[in-house]
């Protein structure tokens, strides 16, 4: 009996391969988007972690030259001979690549990563430079052997210290010494060995990591939304399949199949299908990730078991999470259908109904639920606190809006119907409204996809704008000179003053601010700052107040920590100053206060500036760099070209930004696919409704065009509703979730052009989805239309 029942249930899918495909594809795409985003996230996180690990987010103390220069190799040896466990690092830029020279024998030890290679190959003979492929491409090919190592930070290359000293022109010099843990019981004091050197504290986790954590949290939210879109598709496909099998269900029950067995069979069928789709989805997700991020190609290799060490342990978890999402999603999507089936009166299943034609009562219930959810969202937005409340707000907002959609669309269509006077127009609107229940799931999916895209685009672009603006503000000068000593700074200043537009000394000192460690900066009065700096909040004459010595500017972190805002008074080393401006200082965990240069000089006469910012036309930067190297003997690694630095910093982020654009397209494609499937399903059911109109004289071609127009119109309406929803979503991500998770707010910017582009894409997706059904309708054989009348019930 069970076997026969199973055969009967399966025959349904055999007869409708397209529907089976919809179900599998919907679920697979949903899982793919979810796991793709997860993979990208993990990969990007690892690459940022590598970047911050190697770019100076340092957990170890360092010994550096007190004057900010390099230190002599002889000092390193003297320190080792004095009992100091230190390891030398020489750093500099080579063809735009950050090259770090290390001594593998004394370098701090950590967890090992398996791999080939030998110590002598690294340090001896020709030597090696280790880095990622894209980094190595910029390095001279005739020098040391270039060895590709995927796990290195972008833009960073490692060589043995001897090789690096040669390549950087720093023979006998060392940039800094890393102080290893577990120093011996006895040591000669540092001041006795090398009075010119000083010990600096370990640097806390870097700015980069803090900025990107927020980005990744938002990307994860996007992954969840993409999955929700997919679940809507599955819900549609499963609901349809159940409705269509009502007759079959009645027959099977009549033949004596117990209800429990029937539900078990259907649930088992769903489990198998969802596992199958989930498996395809995970693999597809990695393909997406691999296509979007070249680095994930390595991850993909690992997917098939070809990778090494730690990653292998993570991968089954990803598989499980993908499959779990697929099965859980399918269960969620079909719970309603199974529940209805379980409560179906015996033999009542046979009546043929249009799929999911919700009655007025059901629609009212849905409306009430939507209003309830949106109310909950409002309460959470006003009163909620904590990350959980933030995500709850997100869920309530999206679900409430989705449930509200059919009701609102119904109102809009009814309004249009009232305005229409021509009979065809009236019929068109009425027919659209009549189709609404069948299309509503696909339209909900489209709206969620559009809203997610709008929200995520806003988030990503705001993020990028903030970051770029922050870089512009912090790196407004064209060239930075890091003089080794105050005397050298004076020589540089004398040398460059006639050659550049402005020389701006940069002053900084560690101090206590509002009871915590902080950084005090001195700023000279110059248009560069006045023109470039943007404030989160400022008094109208903030610059004048600052430079008259009657004000202080504080960073957002300090402001939030010490609960300071405009007009509040901050004690700066004994001087009470009112806050005149709050500046964004993304990523810097240390609070910062900025005072005018003269005040700084009186507070810290011992810290003369040796860092100079030079303003000059960008085209003259290379010439000046060469001149400084040639005439003053400044080493190249003490000169920072702003354009290069900015390009480098942005490059780290660009890759992740590029991903979201592609994901936008993918989600819309998924939503368009849902619409196509709904329209195809409806097409068969709608013949009885179209035949009379055809009989009244509307040509099939016209009917087809109207079908197409309807799809585009509906998509247009959905898009109009989705944009504000997307903006609300972005607001929740930036102003609620981000603040709860990280304690600072990412400023939100609007990008109308992006939204217009997304709306265009949505319309195109809808048109593409409707094209085939409309074409089929236009080519329906007249005989089929006539048969409607023959079969009139």
């Amino acid at each position, binding site marked *: 009996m069970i076997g026969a029942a199973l055969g009967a249930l399966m025959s349904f899918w055999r007869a409708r391969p397209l529907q089976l495909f919809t179900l599998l594809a919907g679920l697979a795409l949903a899982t793919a988007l979810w796991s793709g985003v997860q993979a990208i996230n993990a990969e990007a996180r690892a690459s940022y972690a590598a970047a911050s690990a190697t770019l100076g*987010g340092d957990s170890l103390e360092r010994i550096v030259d007190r004057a900010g220069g390099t230190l002599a190799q002889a000092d390193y040896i003297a320190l*080792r001979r004095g009992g100091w466990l230190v390891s030398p690092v020489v750093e500099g830029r080579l063809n735009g690549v950050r090259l770090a020279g290390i001594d*593998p*024998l004394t370098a701090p030890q*950590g967890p090992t*990563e398996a791999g080939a290679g030998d*110590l002598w190959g*690294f*340090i001896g003979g020709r030597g090696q430079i280790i880095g990622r492929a894209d980094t190595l491409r910029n390095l001279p090919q005739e020098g040391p052997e270039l060895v590709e190592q995927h796990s290195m930070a972008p833009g960073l290359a490692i060589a043995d210290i001897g090789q690096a000293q040669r390549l950087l022109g720093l023979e006998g010099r060392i940039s800094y010494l890393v102080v290893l843990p577990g120093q011996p*019981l006895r040591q000669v004091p540092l001041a006795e060995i090398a009075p010119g050197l000083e010990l600096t504290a370990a640097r806390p986790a870097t700015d980069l990591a803090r900025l990107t954590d927020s980005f990744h949290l938002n990307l994860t939210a996007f992954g969840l939304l993409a999955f929700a879109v997919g679940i809507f598709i599955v819900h549609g496909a499963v609901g349809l399949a159940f409705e269509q099998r009502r007759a079959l269900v009645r027959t099977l029950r009549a033949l004596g199949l117990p209800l429990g067995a029937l539900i078990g069979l259907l649930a088992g069928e769903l489990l198998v299908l969802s596992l199958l789709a989930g498996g395809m989805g995970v693999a597809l997700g990695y393909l997406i990730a691999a296509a979007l991020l070249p680095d994930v190609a390595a991850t993909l290799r690992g997917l098939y078991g070809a990778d090494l060490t730690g990653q292998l342990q993570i991968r089954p978890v990803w598989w499980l999470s993908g499959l779990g999402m697929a099965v859980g999603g399918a269960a969620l999507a079909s719970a309603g259908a199974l529940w209805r089936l379980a409560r179906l009166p015996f033999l009542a299943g046979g009546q043929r109904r249009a799929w999911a034609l919700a009655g007025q009562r059901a629609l009212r219930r849905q409306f009430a639920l939507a209003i309830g959810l949106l109310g909950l969202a409002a309460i959470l937005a006003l009163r909620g606190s904590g990350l959980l409340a933030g995500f709850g707000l997100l869920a309530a907002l999206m679900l409430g809006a989705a449930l509200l959609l059919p009701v609102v669309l119904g109102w809009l269509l009814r309004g249009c119907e009232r305005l229409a006077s021509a009979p065809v127009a009236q019929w068109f609107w009425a027919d659209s409204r009549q189709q609404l229940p069948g299309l509503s799931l696909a339209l909900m999916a489209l709206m969620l996809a559009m809203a997610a895209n709008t929200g995520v685009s806003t988030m990503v672009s705001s993020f990028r704008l903030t970051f770029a603006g922050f870089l512009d503000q912090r790196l407004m000068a064209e060239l930075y000179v890091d003089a080794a000593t105050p005397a050298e700074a004076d020589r540089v200043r004398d040398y460059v003053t006639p050659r550049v537009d402005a020389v701006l000394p940069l002053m900084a000192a560690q101090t206590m601010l509002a009871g915590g460690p902080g950084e005090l900066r001195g700023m000279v009065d110059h248009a560069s700052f006045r023109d470039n700096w943007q404030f989160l909040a400022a008094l109208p004459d903030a610059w004048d107040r600052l430079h008259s010595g009657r004000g202080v500017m504080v960073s957002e972190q300090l402001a939030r920590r010490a609960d300071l805002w405009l007009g509040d008074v901050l004690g700066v080393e004994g001087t009470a100053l009112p806050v005149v401006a709050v500046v964004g200082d993304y990523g810097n965990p240390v609070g910062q206060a900025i005072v005018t240069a003269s005040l700084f000089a009186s507070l810290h006469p011992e810290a003369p500036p040796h860092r100079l910012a030079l303003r000059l036309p960008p085209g003259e930067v290379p010439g000046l760099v060469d001149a400084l190297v040639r005439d003053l003997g400044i080493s190249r690694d003490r000169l920072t070209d702003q354009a290069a630095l900015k390009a480098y910093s942005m490059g780290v982020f660009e890759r992740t930004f590029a991903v979201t654009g592609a994901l936008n397209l993918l989600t819309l494609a998924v939503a368009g696919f849902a619409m196509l499937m709904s329209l195809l399903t409806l097409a068969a059911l709608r013949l009885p409704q179209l035949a009379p109109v055809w009989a009244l004289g509307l040509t099939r071609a016209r009917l087809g065009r109207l079908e197409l127009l309807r799809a585009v119109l509906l998509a247009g309406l959905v898009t109009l509703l989705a944009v504000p929803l997307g903006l609300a979503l972005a607001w929740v991500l930036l102003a609620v979730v981000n603040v709860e998770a990280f304690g600072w707010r990412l400023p939100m910017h609007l990008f109308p052009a992006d939204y217009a582009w997304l709306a265009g894409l949505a319309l195109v997706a809808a048109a593409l989805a409707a094209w085939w059904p409309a074409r089929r309708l236009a080519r329906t054989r007249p005989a089929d239309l006539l048969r409607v009348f023959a079969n009139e019930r």
Partner: protein
Amino acid sequence: MNARGLALILWLLPMAAWPQGFAGLGSQTEGFARPVRGHRLEFPADHGPHPDFRIEWWYLTANLRGPDGAPFGAQWTLFRSALAPGGQDPQGWDSPQQWMGNAAVTGTDWHHFSERLARGGVGQAGVVAEPFRAFVDDWVFEQNGQTFDLRASGSDFAYDLHLAGTGPVVLHGEAGYSVKSGAGQASYYYSMPGLEVSGTLWLRDGPVAVTGTAWFDHEWSSQPLAADQTGWDWFSLSFDSGDRLMAFWLRGAERFGSATWIGPDGQATPLTDAEIAARPLAWHQVAGRDVPTRWQVDVPSRGLDVTVQALNPDAWMGGRFPYWEGPVTVTGSRNGQGYLEMTGHE
């Protein structure tokens, strides 16, 4: 650059290639000098380094006692390994010479160990023959007139020891040519077993004045082990009778033993594999490995029938190339003390 960043690069590098420990004692040796039978060692020149050879070590072990008679052991070792042939050249960071220092202090229920690694060619480590001076970082073993100073420190110990009495130089094997396997692997190997020690151990609880005796070894080669040899058990024993025994067994496809009997006058007599015997009596688990820390050692021709027992069975040298090394007490037909080194036990 920090630990995580470096780790990625760093220990991509050598470990897998060094199954037999620092410098790959059993691996290929093209381009390096080889010990030659009949070569005559010259002192003090041969106290210094032999950079044409691939591997070399200066090894000092001391059996010490505190003011209350409490026993201690101290060890100071400097290994040299050439990653490529070429002797002293090139200098600077390109030098193929690498150095590793190991130092330890052992009590009955504690064992402190420290390790230093250094590049050759930049002045961080090295050895000169006359006046003798071996160093890595702040660890020093140097001649100071007629005596030697020995210093080392780790995160939980330090010591300052003075060694007096040059004693006789004992050449092992055939006038210093010490065979290590049936296939003919060999090294140059000599000892100075009778140094008198006084000095201070610096421990967390404070300084401890100590006196005792020390045993100095110097050995160099290019391939001291056969490819199948996985480790060795090495004994340096000083008996109350004034006799001494240096004995080692190399474990491989076959067990290969060799020994030197040293009379109270410093007279050295080589002993062949057939004349000596050693077997484990008790095993101890340390650092996840089973190590024999109690041995029966027999030299029938000398009437030796003794039990050798580790002072502290947990004397594990947990560096990058881990091994067991610690002071031992000898009981049986003769009583005494000494040091035991065991490598390659799994």
